């Protein structure tokens, strides 16, 4: 304050204190950094994801990205909160038929239960023919996906659904 009153530039030495001198950027302490891509719009800005002690500590624009040249919009800059926010569900939830509350369920058990239901529903609703023509399908199982799925995920989903004969496969891309 005294330095500022003495007329020094308030943006330079005059604004410094022991506390500001001790501040270090998050990225300096990071153990690893991964090159990623922003999950929001489809401009595809490059992101650098900094990790320390198993936590994402910072997400910044990637200067090496030819798309974004290091920049991120306010939403992309805040994408660390998408990953780390406390409302994120990290355990499987199960609601039994006619149930009034969520119940916990083991992930492996859930996977087995879902597989059992797919196999059963597929068999019960199988259509070999429709109006005399071969269709080899089920109208009993359907899927809807969002448009932030990876290409590889979309591919595997369509591959499995199609082999199962489930044709009602949709994506945000049409909606």
């Amino acid at each position: 304050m005294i330095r500022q009153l003495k007329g020094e530039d308030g943006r330079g030495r005059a604004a410094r204190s022991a506390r500001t001198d001790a501040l270090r950027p998050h990225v300096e302490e990071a153990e690893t950094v991964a090159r990623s891509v922003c999950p929001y719009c489809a401009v595809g800005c490059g992101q650098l994801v900094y990790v320390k002690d198993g936590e994402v500590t910072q997400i910044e624009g990637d200067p090496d990205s030819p798309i974004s040249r290091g920049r991120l919009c306010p939403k992309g800059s805040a994408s660390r909160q998408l990953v780390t926010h406390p409302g994120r569900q990290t355990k499987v939830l199960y609601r039994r038929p006619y149930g009034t509350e969520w119940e916990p369920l083991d992930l492996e058990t859930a996977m087995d239960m879902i597989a059992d239901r797919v196999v059963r529903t597929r068999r019960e609703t199988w259509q070999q023919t429709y109006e005399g023509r071969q269709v080899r399908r089920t109208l009993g199982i359907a899927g809807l996906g969002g448009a932030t799925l990876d290409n590889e995920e979309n591919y595997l989903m369509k591959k499995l659904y199609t082999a199962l004969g489930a044709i009602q496969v949709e994506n945000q891309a049409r909606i």
Partner: protein
Amino acid sequence: MAECHPVGYQWVMEARERGAKVFHIDPRFSRTSATVDRYLPIRAGTDIVLLGALINYMLSNGLDFRDTEDLDGLFSGYDEETGRYDPSSWAYEGDVPGEEEPVEGGERHAEAAGADSYGARGAGASATPPRDPTLTDPRCVYQIVKRHYSRYTPEMVEELCGIPPERFHELAEAITANSGRERTTAWVYSVGWTQHSVGVQYIRAAAILQLLLGNMGRPGGGVMALRGHASIQGSTDIPTLFNLLPGYIAMPHAYRHGGLDDYLRREGADTGWWGNRRAYVVSLLKAWWGDAATEDNDYCFGYLPRLTGDHGHYATVMGQIDGTVKGYFVVGENPVVGSANGKAQRLGLANLDWLVVRDLVPVETATFWKDAPEIETGELRTEEIGTEVFFLPAASHVEKEGTFTNTQRLLQWREKALDPPGDCRSDLWFYYHLGKRIRQRLGDDEIDRPVKELTWDYPEIGERRDPDAEAVLREINGRAAGGRLPASPRSPSPPGSPPRS
């Protein structure tokens, strides 16, 4: 664009600094409007009139662009004897096209656009339609387009769009001056066009205009969709859509298609790039059914389920309400909020046997059974909803590796920064391990063969046994008829055919 895609907009601003002229046509004044050369407010829903008048302006003033080198409809490098192009005459400096790259065009490139509701290659039109190189026959496409668009005049633009004639002429002259041999004009649109009731007509009108101006297939030209989601383009290219297989290959239809040959004969003409469709379809079938797919069994083409009509999102919801659809997977999507008619969505969910929702948080689609508005009004009662609901937490974009396809169709690989917490898993993990479990449960019935014989052997990584996303990405390129992965995605060889030269 300045507000919703600000980082992409830097390139527009940079182009403007280098002398590009930027128009913003929008009913709403935004930050984009504030930073362009000319903002044109337009009455919502009148874009066809404006685009039509631009087309009319080009055609009636003889301003449409004819070939760069006046080669009577041919481009540089055409060989009359073989009817093919030598791309070396127009390739980028230093770019040597691969020997196997099929290069076709000219007379043979006559594929019609058409019924793409069941695929992307259009109808199987004749490869040799009647032609009038003088473009004067009253029934040729050029003259029909000219007659049709003659109704869209600057006066009509003023009356319907609210754009005065002098502003219209400024726009028309600017796009004409910036199209041609040395310059190109780009049109950029977003959901203001795509989600309009006549969105398809808007985009087709823009495509006609760009074709007339010579702005297609050239740097800085085109009609560009600004995509709203990270990989909405990828979700169409490698689709989770009912009517398409990966790479815009049509799902077979029970009434239109019998075996593989019949399907190939009806799905598009033998010209242009889609003339290779047999190779595309076979390489997909080989990728999916491996050794089980042979020439003798149509490469398992019969394993593909058949469509019989519209099996889209809203047809599915009606199927849930009428009890046809029993099980539903919702992955990274929240239809009870995001789709039209949320109430129908919830009534559909309430009538399912089972529902699987995968997301970062328990979205309304997962919790409808206790907090739907219909519970509050008494139309639904939690104790009477028989739907079994599984909520499986998903991995975020930094907790898995894979690719997004961005708005300009560039695939970008994302590295994994860390493992997802708790039970969170990638959707790749979920579908891979679900598929493994389903395969273990199936018997030897004929209907189970497509699943049992499916190639499903991706390398597993780490303690959580994540399938290798890179192996999946590689498979997306397909497999040659002999079973090998292609060395280059540009060299699909039809089975039995000699290498292309």
